[in-house]
């Protein structure tokens, strides 16, 4: 349970998926009104259920990450496909960006780097633990106990109504991370999430978020050029900073 509610700033992809789930209500006006008047906890629960019980969720994302040392932040854009129970894919739109696929059924963890013309392949078990948990046990997110409170924040030049979420069980070694989520006022679907701690923060905006009635498993399929090499995924390829700094 503790792991399921661990809203860590380090697991950005997990946060993205959580953000979908942590958002409010549906697209129907009546539902939006109902959500607006519901208790925060109830509203958040409903949002979580909508996403984590979906067949598939697709979205464009803009991720802005702060510099822990006080420098300017960094912004990147990409797309996310989340198939609860089946897999997760994040594809960066940035030059040299990666395409990452975790597929539970295929038992694979793939990282494609177009700039290197290499796809790094590993078993499912080598995917980050948080990502696997999100895919395997989305229900645990729904069962997790956290507290939600209404809070307005200034996002994109406008004050937005949203919810601040915290772990319910204090007294343990609670990470000092606060998560805030707000819905797109036009659709009621998740739009903004901010996770901030004492060290850094990350803002994620979900644009054109779509919940599909049926999963398209082909969304987890990497379309690779013929000359792409496949290499085993050695975590040092992902963590070269450890070699020099």
């Amino acid at each position: 349970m503790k792991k399921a509610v661990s809203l860590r700033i380090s697991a950005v992809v997990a946060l993205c998926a959580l953000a979908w789930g942590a958002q409010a209500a549906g697209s129907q006006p009546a539902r939006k009104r109902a959500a607006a008047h519901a208790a925060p906890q109830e509203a958040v629960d409903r949002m979580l259920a909508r996403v984590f019980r979906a067949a598939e969720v697709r979205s464009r994302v803009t991720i802005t990450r702060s510099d822990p040392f006080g420098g300017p932040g960094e912004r990147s854009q990409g797309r996310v496909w989340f198939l609860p129970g089946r897999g997760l894919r994040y594809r960066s739109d940035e030059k040299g960006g990666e395409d990452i696929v975790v597929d539970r059924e295929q038992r694979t963890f793939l990282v494609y780097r177009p700039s290197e013309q290499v796809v790094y392949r590993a078993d499912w078990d080598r995917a980050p633990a948080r990502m696997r948990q999100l895919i395997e046990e989305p229900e645990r997110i729904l069962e997790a106990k956290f507290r939600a409170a209404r809070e307005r924040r200034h996002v994109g030049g406008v004050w937005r109504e949203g919810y601040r979420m915290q772990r319910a069980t204090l007294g343990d070694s609670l990470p000092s991370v606060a998560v805030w989520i707000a819905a797109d006022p036009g659709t009621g679907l998740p739009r903004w999430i901010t996770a901030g701690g004492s060290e850094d923060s990350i803002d994620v905006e979900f644009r054109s978020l779509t919940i599909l009635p049926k999963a398209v498993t082909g969304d987890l399929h990497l379309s690779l050029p013929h000359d792409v090499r496949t290499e085993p995924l050695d975590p040092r390829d992902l963590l070269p900073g450890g070699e020099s700094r």
Partner: protein
Amino acid sequence: MVLASGCARLPKQSSGSRARDRFLAAYAAAHGPERGVAAISVKRAGKGQGSARVRWAANQESLAVIGYVGPTRALDASLQGDELLVLVRHYDVGVSGKLRREEGLDGRLLRFLATPWDFGLPRVRGALEHAAIEPAGGGWRFQGGIEEGGRFTLELSERGEPRSLSLRAAGERGQEIRVRYGPERNYTAGRIPGWIEWSFSGSVVLLTIEDFAPVDASKIRYRPAIEPEWRMLALDEPDGSALVRWLLGIDEGGTAEP
């Protein structure tokens, strides 16, 4: 770090002692805390190439580094003297403890090698003050030792800018690390090379510096929050030592993997 602004375009020095004085004044002056942002790529012999982004902040003998893979904060590392902390966030695992020179991991040498343009570190400056200097290729060559850490050769251009550094760690199996310095660029915190390249045992690591600026020392966190479910290893236990060597590409004999 290094250069006070305006010190970069150095005239050719007519004697070794003048070249040394000028180099120390320009490149080994005391300075405040600094931070940077860079792209890093790694090529290993017989293997592929990896790349990532890093942010770092340094204050005297201490250094904090964060590595990002795509949008994810993947790795935290810090060095405070001989105290090392590494967190591999992707795998909820970390290691901490004291580096021991006799085991092939010298913390202060690692600190210098991490930012090899910073000749102001006391130990490094002291070594340069006592190094032999001779003309070489139109520029100058320093040769000496960094205490018990190892022997070094530093070559300067005819303008007195660092061009290459070779450092061989102490001991029979001491690993040789070579550093090449790219042309200097102006940054907020001064002039430093636009890129640095490390070579060791067939591996080549290239750091392309994008931003380099002063930082408030209070913003540098060397000990990030550690979550209870992470597996933390001690550096003096076999698994911890193995993790650090694995990340650094060093085998049990103290040399990098071929």
